[in-house]
Structures are given as structure tokens and as C-alpha cells.
């Protein structure tokens, strides 16, 4: 850490902004290097993501996923725990949703949503509980155990789909469709109530509102409750927290349960809201994007909200690029990597020059 001080506003806005700009500049150079025009690419991405309610719908659908996983990573980061296991926790959340919706009768989508939320959060939280417990009680490094649990989750899900959930005679390792009564209302139906027209195609649904609500709830939990204070105290300094009578082991386990539950809840959007059945690899990397979203959002729920929208834009814009140009979708993975690199690992590279600028100004 640099000893030079940066004003709070600059720390929250300027540092991440400069990091993102750096990531975008390198991405632009890459696009130019493979013989495409960066300017045309940006225009096409913005048009594709924000130019129509169709584009907005997909942008918000992806953003919803990233809000869930971004919040999951951010909450854990607040206690200085790096939960890389969002991918596996979200996958298990999907299993929870599928079991609840397939094996219990649901008369109406509102009740189904309630039941599915419990299933998703419970399965996600349980999948995070074991690494959390091992970190708290046995000192096993949470990063390694959560990585391992991602792979174990993938194998476990594969096993469950092939041996139990797959309909008899089907080759495809996926569950049957959920009952029609459990289908979630899409955004165009909700907006239709207010007379606002919206494209019917994109899968964005009521989970978006749940995700936004969770951003507020997590903010409130972190900054307005005793538990939140304990979590942040543990993140600042474990000895100090211990001295203040906070049990690090207890908080570690609770934080991981919350984090896993948030990641698991993502299944409401992709499994219940979009596919309406459980397929292999339903998460599609959204658990990992949560890392980039949390880092960019400075582990603050409102920052996570904005960063999730940005990544939703990148995903939808990237899909359009892949459709109309020779730039493959994986360009987004590169941008995601650069954002993680600059906002996460190379933070000091950006921070130190900014701090120098501020001290120059103060001196001058």
C-alpha cells in the first residue's frame, strides 16, 4: 500500500475508471491487431446492447446473472475471503431449483418462486459451507478448496443429470421441462402492466428485480447491521476483530453461507427464468465474471450493480460482434481478464501515479 493519501471520491471512482480505460485501450489494440476497426466494434456493441429494447433485454438478463455472482464475491471480499467457487455454487443452486420445481406441486409462479429461492439459496450455501468450515476450523485455504469444489460440482451435476434427472430414453444430459405454472413473468409482461412496450424475445424476467433488491439488502446488511459490522471488521483486521470479541471462525462460516446463497440464487434467472429446465453447464462462466464485477465495483453493492450492467453490455455487445464480424465471442473473456488484471492485481500500478498527482496538486 502506498502511504500517500488519495481522496475518498478518487479512490472510489477514479482508480477503477482508469483501470477500466486501460483494459479497454488494450482490447481496442487487440481488435485493431486482428484487422477490425475498434471504433466500428464499439459502435456495434453499443447499438447491439442499448439500441433497442431487444438489446436492452439481453443486456439486463446477463446483468442479472452478474449481480447475483458479483454480490456473492463482494460479500466474501468484505471479510477478506476470496470465494472463487461462485461457478460451482451457482451450478448447485440450479440443482436446488430443479429439484424443488420438478418434485413439488406448485399452483402459482409466486409460490414456485418462493420455493425455488429457498432451494437455490440452500444448495448454493451448502456448497460454500464446506470450504467455509474448512477455512474457519482447519485453516484450509479457501481459494484452493473453492476451486476444487467447482470441479466437484461439475462432476456431481453431470452425475445427477445423467443418472436421475434425465428423462428415460433421452440422450441429452438435461432435466425435463419445469411445469408451465412455474414459468416466471418476463420483463415485457411486467412493463406491459404500466403500458410500456418492450421486446418479447429476451429472457430478462422478474429475477432482475430480485437482484436489484438484493443489492440494497446486501448494502443494508453490510453497513446497517451488527453482522455487517462484524464482517467488515474481520476484513479490516483479524486480530482487531478478535480483540473486539468477534469470532473469526463464526463470521467466516456465516459469510460463506451468505456468499454461496447469493451465487446459488443466480439459478432463479438462468435456470428458472430462461431455460426452464436444468442443463449441463448452465452457469456458463457467470460465477467467474462475478470476480471481475466485484473487483470493479470495489466490493460495494452499488458498485456491483453498475459493474454488472457494464458486463451485461459487454456480453450482449460481444454476442452482436460475433454475429456480424470476424471477432469471436471470446473477446469478452479477454476484456474480462484485463479488467480483473488492472482493477485487481495491478491496482497499485494505477493507484501510485494517481496518488502522486494528488500530492503534487496539494503541494502546488
Amino acid at each position: 500500500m502506498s502511504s500517500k493519501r488519495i481522496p475518498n471520491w478518487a479512490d472510489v471512482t477514479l482508480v477503477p475508471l482508469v483501470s477500466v480505460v486501460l483494459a479497454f485501450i488494450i482490447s481496442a489494440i487487440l481488435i485493431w491487431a486482428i484487422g477490425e476497426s475498434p471504433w466500428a466494434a464499439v459502435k456495434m456493441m453499443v447499438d447491439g446492447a442499448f439500441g433497442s429494447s431487444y438489446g436492452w433485454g439481453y443486456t439486463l438478463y446477463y446483468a442479472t446473472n452478474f449481480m447475483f455472482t458479483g454480490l456473492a464475491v463482494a460479500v466474501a471480499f468484505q471479510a477478506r475471503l476470496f470465494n472463487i467457487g461462485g461457478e460451482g455454487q451457482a451450478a448447485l443452486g440450479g440443482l436446488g431449483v430443479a429439484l424443488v420445481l420438478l418434485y413439488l406441486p406448485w399452483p402459482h409462479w409466486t409460490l414456485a418462486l418462493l420455493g425455488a429461492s429457498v432451494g437455490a439459496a440452500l444448495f448454493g450455501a451448502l456448497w460454500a459451507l464446506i470450504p467455509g468450515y474448512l477455512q474457519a476450523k482447519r485453516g484450509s485455504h479457501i481459494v484452493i478448496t473453492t476451486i476444487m469444489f467447482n470441479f466437484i460440482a461439475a462432476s456431481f451435476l453431470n452425475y445427477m443429470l445423467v443418472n436421475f434427472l434425465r428423462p428415460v430414453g433421452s440422450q441429452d444430459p438435461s432435466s425435463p421441462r419445469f411445469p408451465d405454472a412455474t414459468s416466471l413473468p418476463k420483463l415485457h409482461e411486467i412493463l406491459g402492466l404500466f403500458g410500456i412496450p418492450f421486446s418479447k424475445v429476451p429472457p430478462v424476467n422478474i429475477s432482475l428485480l430480485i437482484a436489484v433488491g438484493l443489492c440494497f439488502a446486501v448494502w443494508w446488511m453490510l453497513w446497517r447491521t451488527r453482522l455487517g459490522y462484524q464482517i467488515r471488521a474481520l476484513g479490516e483486521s483479524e486480530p482487531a476483530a478478535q480483540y473486539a470479541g468477534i469470532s473469526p471462525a463464526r463470521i467466516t462460516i456465516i459469510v460463506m453461507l451468505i456468499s454461496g446463497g447469493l451465487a446459488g440464487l443466480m439459478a432463479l434467472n438462468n435456470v428458472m427464468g430462461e431455460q426452464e429446465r436444468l442443463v449441463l453447464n448452465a452457469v456458463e462462466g457467470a460465477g467467474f465474471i462475478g470476480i471481475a464485477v466485484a473487483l470493479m465495483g470495489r466490493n460495494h453493492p452499488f458498485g456491483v450493480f453498475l459493474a454488472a450492467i457494464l458486463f451485461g453490455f459487454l456480453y450482449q455487445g460481444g454476442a452482436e460482434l460475433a454475429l456480424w464480424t470476424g471477432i469471436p465471442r471470446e473477446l469478452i473473456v479477454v476484456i474480462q481478464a484485463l479488467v480483473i488484471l488492472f482493477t485487481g492485481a495491478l491496482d497499485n500500478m494505477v493507484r501510485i501515479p494517481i496518488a502522486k498527482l494528488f500530492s503534487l496538486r496539494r503541494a502546488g
Partner: protein
Amino acid sequence: MDLATLAQVLDSTLRLATPLLFACLAGLISERAGVFDIGLEGKILAAAFLAAAIAYVSGNVWLGVLAGIAVSVFMSLIHGVASITFRGNQLISGVAINFLAAGLTVVIAQNWFQQGGRTPSLTGDARMPTIDLPFAEALADVPVIGPIYGIFSGHAPLVYLAFLCVPATWFLLFRTRFGLRLRAVGENPAAVDTAGVSVIGLRFGAVAICGVLCGLAGAYLSTGLSAGFVKDMSAGRGYIALAAMIFAKWRPWHAMGAVLLFGLLEAVANRFQSIEVFGLALPVQVMQALPYILTVVILAGFVGRAIPPRAGGSPYVKEH
């Protein structure tokens, strides 16, 4: 299982263990110096791509191997700059490297070869040759000895190199001055600094060696084990290598044992859909997950605790 099948499974065990062994030793050296590296996966992938691409373009597999090493070392240096020079979070840097490789390999491969993110198939001199050990032909028909000797014969040079790297790593770490300092820098960097040895230099040295070994792992993967690069072909091997390293508790000889075990699991899972162990049918998914489950058990300390180097993961800040 008859003897011929067993020989085939063991033969493929050696092949599958090779990239794991290179990567495992790479991670071991880096972490012994106090630099966590969960970016092994990304370096393997990047090396696999460039090795296959250059081997295809030049028609010479060894130029490909060199290119693979070069790109892997380059990525190691990014990790070094982020985590050593700028004292960033080593884990986050590793995650970034993995995604960087996953994205860049496909973007560049698609642009270069227009085959949906893969390289064309390698043939002839672009493919890694195999070496027959002396007398393999003559001994082939001798019962018992023939098939056993056959398991060890007929592999690519990098397979033998990987297994030679085990004693070499042991020697480097435990019998040279560089190794002593390298281990010291992972346990107590302040002491090394006090002795007037550069912590930064040692850590960069370890990270560079890690890059070379990951490069070899990737190059073997795309030119020896397969004939060309396909998207995401590292398929979690970097993480399995990480698991093997923990399983081996950061010791070279044990690392060889761990990767052979994990290689065997993969070879068996490739060949059989399910296998009976003591009358219990073990599904293929369990065998795929077993390396990870075993690692968690070891990490949990229920069977011999795994304790990483003490200064691992934390950047060194000189006192003023």
C-alpha cells in the same frame, strides 16, 4: 482386466501424467519461493496454442516447443510484475492470467486459421516424435518383461524429460545454494533480504522457471498428446497440477507420485465408463472428481496436514 489392457492403461497413464508433472513442478517451484500461482492453467493453454500454431506454420515441432515456452514465460512475467513488483494480489493475478489465455487463444486462433478457434491438425515433423528405448523390439515378445518394458518405451522425448525434471527439481531445491535461498524466500523473505540477497530477483527467477515448465506442459499437450490445438484443451489440468502439488505437500518426489495417481485416474476414466471397486460400481464422474476430492481431504488435514510455505501469497515489503 487382462494384462494387455492393463499395459495400455499404464502406458496412457505416463502420457497423461506428463503435462501434469511439468505443471506441478512449475507450481511447486513458484510456491516454494512464496509466489502462489493459480495461473498454471492459463500458461499451459497459451503454450499449447502457440506451440501448435508455430509447429504447424514452420513444420518443425521444436520451434513450436520454443514458442510455447516463450509465451508461457511472458505470462509468468505478467504475473511477476503484478504480484512481485506492484505487490498485487497473487490469486487475482492468477485468475486474470487464466482468462487472458482462455480468451486470447481463441481470438487469435480464429483470426489466424479461421477454423473456429483451433489450429489445423499437425502431421509429420510438426508432431512430436517418439523414442523407442533400446532393445524394445527385441524384448517385445518376452513374457512379463516385454510388456512392462513396452510401457516405458515409445514415448515422446518430453515424457522422459518430465520425469528427469523430478530429480533435477529436487537437486535444485535441496542441494544448491540457489535452491536454499529460494526456499528461504518462501518461508522468511526478511531473513534473505537481511543476508543481502535480492528477494525480488529470487522470486522473479522462480516465476520464470515456472513459466518454462508450464510451457513444456502446454507444448506436449498440443503436439505430443494431441495433434493440434483446440479451444480450452488444457481442460483443468493446471488445477489438477495444483491439486497434485498440495497432495505432494510441495515435495518433488511426492509430486511424481501424485501426478501418476491422477494420471491413472484419468486413464481409467477415459477407458471405462464405470469400474467395480470391491463390488461397488464407481461411476466415471467420481473418477473425474476424485483428484479434487482427495485434495480437499488432504487440505482439511484429516490425512496428514498440508502446510504451504509460510510467506506464500504475501508480497514482500522492505522495511524502511
